[in-house]
């Protein structure tokens, strides 16, 4: 190509479109989140986190020299909406990748659409079926419900107990975790002596807890997020049950302690390092990442940080890293880069992915916490 033609070409281009824009057309990243509806408790911080960090990344010059354009839709927790929005992200918005899917149901509904379109998808939901079996373009950042059960049962055994009374919500998260717990209990030498449930929005669980009390359970495990765990925790104290109470990673936000009040004292739960950022030993690899995210989120959003927003942070950062490593916005190349992720330090743990592991976390990513004096205490 001779020089004149090059100049001519550039002149034409600048006539049609400002050169800068051609060079730096934004990279579109899509998201569908349950910002409203029963899972808004999770979806809201996820949305805030994505918006906050995309802005920060763009302020710092973007990715591959291009800005990120974020397209977020609110699926209201309805799987059907999630699928429609996934289609819209693929077909109308032409996003290169998706970070979203607040619940397992919305994630599962969207997977076929994104897989068909070969769009890398990082889900923020807990269900193990998202990555098991492995689907070529689907990844996830949070720990699975099964890991939470395993972590809890490990601690239960350590304290010398074997009889567990389960109480779970019939909504997605609670139902899914309940199933996983029932499944792994025998493997871990745990006997589930009561299996009580309550509907989302229920405001009293004393009848269920009474039954657990009568069942001879030695500890109580509650699987749910949002309002339910706070009510269960208060009811346990109201009834004066002196059984150890375990909550799940679904309550991993300071607001749980506020809602449950003094009743939360002594409650244990498996959670990501973020809740105890300050208590982490200085040599903990996650300490810096977790502290940074926490201070950034709390100073800009004026609300306590939760691990749910952290899942979105991890998802976005994993994706950005993969795009940079791939040097391209091609779906397959991004996917390959994601799969090759090694030693990524996120809020949820250190991520090591592989073609057979699209989550890349192990049990060490979970810490066992106890609530003491109205605050989280890192046990181990």
């Amino acid at each position, binding site marked *: 190509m001779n020089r004149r033609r090059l100049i001519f070409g550039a002149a034409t281009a600048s006539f049609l479109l400002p050169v800068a824009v051609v060079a730096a057309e934004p990279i579109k990243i899509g998201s569908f989140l349950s910002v*409203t509806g029963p899972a808004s408790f999770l979806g809201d911080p996820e949305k805030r986190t994505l918006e906050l960090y995309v802005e920060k990344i763009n302020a710092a010059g973007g990715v591959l020299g291009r800005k990120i354009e974020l397209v977020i839709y609110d699926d209201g927790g309805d799987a059907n909406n999630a699928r429609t929005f996934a289609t819209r992200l693929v077909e109308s918005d032409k996003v290169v990748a998706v970070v979203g899917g607040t619940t397992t149901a919305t994630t599962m509904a969207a997977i076929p659409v994104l897989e068909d379109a070969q769009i890398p998808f990082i889900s923020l939901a807990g269900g193990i079926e998202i990555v098991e079996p492995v689907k070529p373009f689907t990844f996830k950042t949070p720990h699975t419900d099964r890991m939470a059960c395993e972590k809890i049962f490990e601690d239960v055994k350590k304290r010398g107990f074997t009889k567990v009374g389960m109480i779970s919500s019939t909504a997605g998260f609670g139902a899914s975790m309940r199933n996983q717990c029932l499944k792994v209990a025998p493997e871990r030498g745990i006997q589930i002596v009561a299996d009580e449930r*309550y*509907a989302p929005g229920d*405001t*009293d669980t004393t009848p269920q807890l009474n039954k657990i009390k009568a069942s001879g359970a030695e500890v109580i495990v509650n699987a749910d997020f949002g*309002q339910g765990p706070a009510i269960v925790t208060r009811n346990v104290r*109201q009834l004066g049950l002196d059984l150890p109470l375990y909550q799940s990673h679904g309550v991993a936000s300071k*607001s749980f302690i506020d809602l449950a009040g*003094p009743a939360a004292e002594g409650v244990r739960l498996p959670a990501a390092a973020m809740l105890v950022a300050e208590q982490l030993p200085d040599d903990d690899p996650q300490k810096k990442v977790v502290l940074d995210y926490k201070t950034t989120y709390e100073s800009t959003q004026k609300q306590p940080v939760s691990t749910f927003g952290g899942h979105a942070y991890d998802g976005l950062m994993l994706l950005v890293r993969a795009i940079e490593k791939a040097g391209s916005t091609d779906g397959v190349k991004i996917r390959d880069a994601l799969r090759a992720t090694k030693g990524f330090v996120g809020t949820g743990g250190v991520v090591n992915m592989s073609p057979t592991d699209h989550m890349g976390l192990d049990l060490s990513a979970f810490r066992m916490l106890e609530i003491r004096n109205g605050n989280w205490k890192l046990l181990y």
Partner: protein
Amino acid sequence: MVELVQLLFAGLTTGAVYALVALGFTLIFQASEVVNFAQGEFVMLGGMVTVFAMKAGLPLPLAALLAVLVAVATGLLLHRLAIEPAKGATVVTLIIVTIGASILIRGLAQIVFDKQFHALPAFTGDEPIRLLGAAILPQSLWVLGGAAAIVLGLWLFMERTLLGKAVRATAANRLAAELVGIDTRVVLALAFAVSAAIGAVGGILVTPITLTSYAVGTLLALKGFAAAMLGGIGNPVGAVVGGLLLGLLESFAAGWISSTYKDGVAFLVILLVLFALPQGLLGRRAVERV
């Protein structure tokens, strides 16, 4: 015995809230035959406004008063801006208007407040009271007492005041009420205001136990509606009976039958009651005149 008392109080506390929502339904229904599906939003407003007013530094009584005023204003606006302009439309159309209003109020609440759950401190401490071996929260007694006071106050208002009599006259026969000079528009506005106030007070009383968020209204509207129909709509006593009964059904079904299917048991009982008594437990049985 201990278990029985425990289940009884759990059911009564939940049922008292259902009863208050059902009472709100009944008042508006009497004045207009409209089932106001935005009724649950008044309960939400009661709790949420109190929470946020307290966060802003108001003491509980003032915050609660503000919450009731906000709910009443919302009720009046709903009447003035949505129900009144649709005057003359069919009952079904008006019900859809209230559904739209409930979506609108919820949509605004999630912006004005937030999407988190919130609690209020219990009015008189968290230490459970022992009663026949069962543990009862003091706040439960506030809820039950508050609900009883509202029911009594409403009864006095209906029986002893001129305005209350106008409401009852309108309920009995709107045309006749208009003919004797009752402004049924005012009566309807009043019904919305009182319903909103009842809902808000219920929300304030119960938030220390049940927590609240912008989205709690839908479920309460659903349960309150079921309770009102179980008792027989249009009958305030029926609303209270229906509400308490629904709460008890859920509690005892969870305790004795199946916690998974407790809502199913409750609705099954409602179906069976209606099959036997098509006007609800205390509804008026009308002989069709031809």
